[in-house]
């Protein structure tokens, strides 16, 4: 009896507040926009039979017909891919440096990587607004150095979105790579060098392949949330920055078109299933390899 309650309470909670809401989103994505409250038709009140009869894929057809949506999906994918790659380029040397640091520093370095993670996401994105603006500190600094003659326009462009994603998701990239590098046996590199590899060759042929799992895990941890990101494109990006999270928000709050917003959500979810399944598989394989 007690075991039943232990299972049932969290189970029912998640069913009611996680699964059922999704079914509702799916249902509304098949309905039509209506000038009513709630602003869609048919509703449950029309009777179950009529409700199902009135369902159609009109909203999904609409998504394929209007340029805006598929461009937004493609541009989200592109932005997420490019920024994941850039985060890897920035994060790998940091993780590598941490793994090579003296033992007594490591706990402190680890804390320094985790600390930003506990700080408000919104504030960390906001911090860049003052730096990247036309009169911002970065431009002031570059003008002072004499590297540029007029301020660079960075804020409200895709470049600012890349910087924002790299900055906020960097700890997610560093930690798994550090974990992989930390376990690496130093003598393998020495062996490679003894056998005639240069330092660089040993790094590419030994270190990189052996930290592969960390690279894969870190990349997924950045790519998956970056794809549906809303705060970064809406604060740092401009009107030209198309990201699907922002489109969904605007469709819902500004246009009040719930059926289309729901259809946008369903398609985003379908796109996300692929990287999520790949990530899960990778994690499972790694867990099995460790046993």
């Amino acid at each position, binding site marked *: 009896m007690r075991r039943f309650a232990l299972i049932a*309470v969290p189970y029912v909670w998640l069913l009611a507040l996680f699964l059922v809401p999704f079914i509702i989103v799916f249902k509304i994505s098949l309905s039509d926009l209506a000038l009513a409250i709630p602003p869609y038709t048919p509703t449950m009140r029309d009777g179950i039979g009529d409700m199902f009869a009135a369902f159609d894929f009109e909203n999904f057809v609409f998504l394929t017909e209007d340029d805006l949506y598929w461009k937004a999906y493609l541009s989200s994918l592109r932005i997420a891919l490019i920024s994941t790659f850039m985060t890897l380029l920035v994060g790998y040397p940091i993780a*590598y440096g941490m793994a090579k640091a003296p033992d007594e520093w490591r706990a402190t370095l680890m804390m320094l990587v985790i*600390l930003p993670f*506990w700080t408000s996401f919104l504030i960390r994105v906001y*911090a860049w607004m003052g730096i990247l603006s036309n009169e911002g500190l970065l431009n002031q600094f570059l003008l002072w150095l004499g590297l540029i003659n007029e301020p660079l326009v960075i804020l409200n462009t895709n470049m600012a979105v890349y910087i924002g994603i790299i900055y906020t998701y960097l700890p997610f990239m560093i930690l798994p790579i550090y974990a992989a590098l930390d376990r690496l046996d130093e003598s393998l590199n020495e062996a490679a060098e003894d056998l005639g590899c240069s330092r660089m060759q040993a790094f590419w042929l030994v270190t990189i392949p052996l930290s592969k799992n960390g690279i894969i895990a870190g990349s997924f941890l950045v790519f998956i949330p970056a794809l549906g990101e809303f705060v970064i494109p809406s604060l740092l990006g401009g009107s030209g920055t198309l990201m699907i999270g922002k489109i*969904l*928000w605007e469709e819902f709050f500004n246009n009040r078109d719930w059926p289309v917003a729901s259809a946008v959500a369903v398609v985003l979810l379908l796109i996300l299933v692929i990287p999520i399944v790949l990530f899960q598989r990778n994690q499972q394989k790694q867990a099995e390899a460790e046993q």
Partner: protein
Amino acid sequence: MKRMSWFNVTSLTLGFAFLYLPMIILVIYSFNASKLVTVWAGFSTRWYGELVQNDAFLDAAWVTIKVAVMSSTLATVLGTMAAYVLVRGGRFLGRTLFSGMIYAPLVMPEVITGLSLLLLFIGIGLDRGVLTIVLAHTTFSMCYVSVVVSSRLVTFDRSLEEAALDLGCSGWDAFRLVTLPIIAPAVISGWLLAFTLSLDDLVIASFTSGPSATTLPIKIFSAVRLGVSPEINALSTIMIAIVTVGVITASLVTKRNAVRAEADTRAAERAQA
């Protein structure tokens, strides 16, 4: 001692400068006397004064803390139960679905979680306010709690529980007296994680809050959309200070406990010898 190559020193220096400079700049400019955030006009605590008098921000801060305390506490209870079911529950009907529902919210875009919960609340006619935000935050943060707690439960020596049961404890007593004290650090970090997630959340709160309840992130977001403001810098500085003090204290306490545990083990070994 290992010597670090210049390459590693450079990459660590640049990396941590990149992570910390934006926040340091934000903190410095919160003490700027000028309204123009990019021009330095001398030291002043003026914005902190204005912040303290801003009732809208104080109200929002109060709502945020209330929501965070309630949702993280509920999430810790539910998440610990879920972790226990996942690790110790054995087989039951719909186990795969259950574990799927635990892991899915971790990778779900916030816009989708927010939208779906809002549609549910409207569907069942629940007025949006503090309650709906608490329900929403509990749902996603219980999954984080359960991941943290189950990673501790997996490494936990089950025979300790069995010993307690053999010695006449009831199942609940064995959990309360043996299991809970051992998994307590994970439960506490789960609570802290749930608490920060709730404090931080903008997107899900925006979908599930009504006009009667505005949280601090919603307030900050609507202010920041119009551009950088020194008042927000002051508010951010206070939040950064709280987090920094919290994290440093927590790591010092963990370190002290680790040192103490080690000293205990050594003392025990000496006593045996």
